């Protein structure tokens, strides 16, 4: 048997809407099999991942807190991917943004610098993330080096830099040798939206980013440019759009959003700088971006869904003794199904008995 793809004559709107839901359904079916194979009761396990997080207030808050960086980063990545520029180093940009903003907090620690500190930290985080993202973008535009590989290599470098800082010059002298900076002063911490909760003001920035990206893509000439460059490079040149400059622009935007997300993490939920400030948000955001079909509003929804699997993963670790990596497996499978279902929008899939077509030559 062989898989045969037939191009659809008209793109199916129904399938375009149904495809992410179908992907989620297929993921659930697959996970049922996986859980059963691991000797778990599939119904219980699925409930822990996909239902329990929705049932209590604490988990719902945590979903919002985890979804916030995912959505913010994914929105930026979506702009890149739409323009056919492959930034996969958002994790590194997140770390650098967190480092840059934290630098201000560390330097002003103990001195009361006034209300400018937090805005300055946010700005520093965004600018540093953008600058770090511009390295692979410039390597691509100036020298033709693969932005995929360069942006990824820089993730490791950023991780090592963070490690150096919190173990070295920025380590809290009163911290019992733990690799962490001192707790940020309250002037360097994001205000909470709901007193006593973990829901912080960063969520608002995320929603602003979603709205801005939705308008940018849907209504503006720049958004049109992004879409044209990504789908038909030659037509883009004909339209007078400069693809190189767009690589720089989209990388800078996505880097800024990733850097901002990183800074929000340390100035919000975490409250200090430490080696593991992100459970791979920069990579998971890639899944979120695709699951949301590279559409800002879709990303908002998919970010919440993927955040739920993080919370579910934490609960499964406690309740079912399943390792944290199970979350990665679920997310990986989900991404595969999302991509596969996207293929359904373009093609009709048929199984056909294997044609006697020579593999090794025409005869």
């Amino acid at each position, binding site marked *: 048997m062989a898989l045969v793809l037939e191009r659809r004559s008209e793109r199916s709107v129904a399938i375009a809407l149904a495809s992410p839901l179908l992907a989620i359904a297929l993921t659930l079916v697959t996970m049922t099999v996986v859980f059963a194979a691991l000797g778990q009761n599939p119904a219980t396990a699925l409930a822990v991942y996909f239902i329990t997080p929705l049932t209590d207030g604490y988990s719902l808050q945590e979903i919002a807190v985890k979804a916030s960086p995912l959505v913010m980063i994914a929105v930026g990545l979506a702009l890149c991917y739409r323009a056919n520029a492959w930034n996969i180093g958002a994790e590194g940009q997140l770390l650098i943004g967190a480092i840059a903003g934290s630098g201000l907090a560390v330097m002003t620690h103990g001195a009361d610098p006034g209300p400018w500190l937090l805005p300055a930290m946010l700005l520093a985080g965004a600018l540093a993330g953008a600058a770090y993202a511009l390295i692979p973008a410039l390597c691509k535009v100036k020298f033709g080096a693969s932005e995929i590989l360069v942006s990824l290599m820089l993730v490791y470098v950023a991780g090592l830099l963070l490690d150096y800082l919190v173990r070295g010059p920025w380590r809290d002298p009163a911290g019992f040798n733990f690799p962490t900076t001192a707790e940020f002063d309250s002037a360097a911490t994001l205000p909470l939206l709901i007193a006593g909760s973990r829901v912080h003001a960063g969520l608002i920035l995320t929603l602003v980013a979603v709205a801005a990206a939705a308008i940018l893509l849907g*209504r503006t*000439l720049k958004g049109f440019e992004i879409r044209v460059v990504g789908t038909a490079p030659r*037509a883009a*040149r*004909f339209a007078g759009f400069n693809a190189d400059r767009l690589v720089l622009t989209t990388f800078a935007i996505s880097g800024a959003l990733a850097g901002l997300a990183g800074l929000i993490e340390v100035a919000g939920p975490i409250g200090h700088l430490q080696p593991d400030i992100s459970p791979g948000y920069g990579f998971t955001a890639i899944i979120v971006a695709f699951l949301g079909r590279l559409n800002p509003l879709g990303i908002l929804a998919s970010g919440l869904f993927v955040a739920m699997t993080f919370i579910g993963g934490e609960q499964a670790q406690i309740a079912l003794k399943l390792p944290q990596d199970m979350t990665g497996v679920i997310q990986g499978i989900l991404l595969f199904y999302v991509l596969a279902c996207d293929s359904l929008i373009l093609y009709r899939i048929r199984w056909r008995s294997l044609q006697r077509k020579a593999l090794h030559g*025409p005869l």
Partner: protein
Amino acid sequence: MAPPSDPGQTEPSPPLFLGRGLTKRFGSFTANDAIDLDLAGGEIHALLGENGAGKSTLVKLITGLLQPDDGQMMWRGAPVAFAGPAEARMRGIAAVSQHFALFDNLTVAENVALGLDARASVRKLSDELERVAQRYGLPLDPKREVWRLSVGERQRIEIVRALLQDPQLLILDEPTAVLTPAEADRLFEVLEQLRADGRALLYISHKLEEVRRLAGTATILRGGRVVGRCDPRLESTATLARMMVGSDVIAPKQSIHTIGEPRLSVTALTLPPDDPHGVTLRDITLQVRSGEIVGIAGVAGNGQDELFAALSGETVIDREEAIAIGGTAAGGLTINQRRELGAAFVPEQRLGHATVPTMSLSDNALLTGHGTGSLVRFGLVDRGATLALVDRVTETFDVRKAKRDPEAARLSGGNLQKFIVGREILREPGLLIVDQPSWGLDAGAAGAIRQALLDLSATGAAVLVISQDLDELIEIADRIAVMFHGRLSPPRPVSEIGRDQLGLLMGGSGWQTTEARDGAGA
């Protein structure tokens, strides 16, 4: 290689290939509708038809690339069904496609080897190549990489590859579309020799003169059906054309122009290509004046693409003054800045270059209109205005489409080209540069496009038409220049230059003298 059968045979041989009621549908569209076709050895059989008449589909059925939905094929008197091209090839059916199945980065010998059976070693092939090349006068260097070769040489690889399989039936799909007249003449000699060997040849073309000269039988297709069979030698081009197109073709009328000041001046433009496989433009000088149409003839791949890119601004030039649009030095300007100077451009590739195939027409209207006019305000796209523009183009240029704002890819070639040309003409350009305006269009649409170009020039615009179709240029252009190996001959009035002279220039002869006279040598 030995001839496949005794060339001296005289008794009428039964048809080698027999097709009865061959039908192929794609969804609701019937590309081939109950087609009967007989092919005999020692005969050149022409398959005539407009683009979209179903010729290519029929060839794919015969060569096993597609399987018929209905109907029967007989090969040497026995029913056959080919599961794939390999099987057809094994029986002795070879095809030289319009789209070469060649690998640019591989050598000639490697390309030939890939078309032959598994045991042929690349080195042994080189000897075989030599022999076939000798016998049919098709010289090729086995060690050269394909991207270094001219289009004519590339076609030679395809033909040699087919001949090395010693086919009984050789199918040629529009083989002269990319050849100079001289190259075409050489090809005809080869084909005649193959016919004399007793092979069957199926010759696909829409060039009537060629068919009359070459073929002993012709089958004419229109709309997927057989609409006529004849001996083309007994017909006139006019009668053949009527069978092919279905009605008498109305030629666009020449209007009276007043020729004014130059709108486009190219002065000694020399430009190395971006792409390592591209052509270097050498010392190109040209003027197009208000109210006139200048044509650039030439075989594909002689620098036309590079010239179009340089004129449009898709490639930016160092020397600012090499190109002037409306009197302003424009060499360093981007395509949008040139549009602001009143220039408009229509590239050859309709899908993917002139339009984004998966985007709506209104988005595609924005593609060239975003820099000028009122489609964009403060960075925001005015959806109402882009839609209104689509409506205006639709009305003015009779674009037929299923809904108000479909994706570009949903339009037929002719309607899409009407949209693309209309989109530019409605911007009221002072200069329009068009690459292959009617390539692949049916006669009706091609006529409409040419008429639109004539009308535009009558309003005082300057029009530059790059085309491989010499007939088209002779029909609409006031002056014609020829491109060859990146050079451009001085444009001459159509009334003063003969078709044969153009043919010679296209084939690379007569350049020394022209250059010497104009002092344009390099």
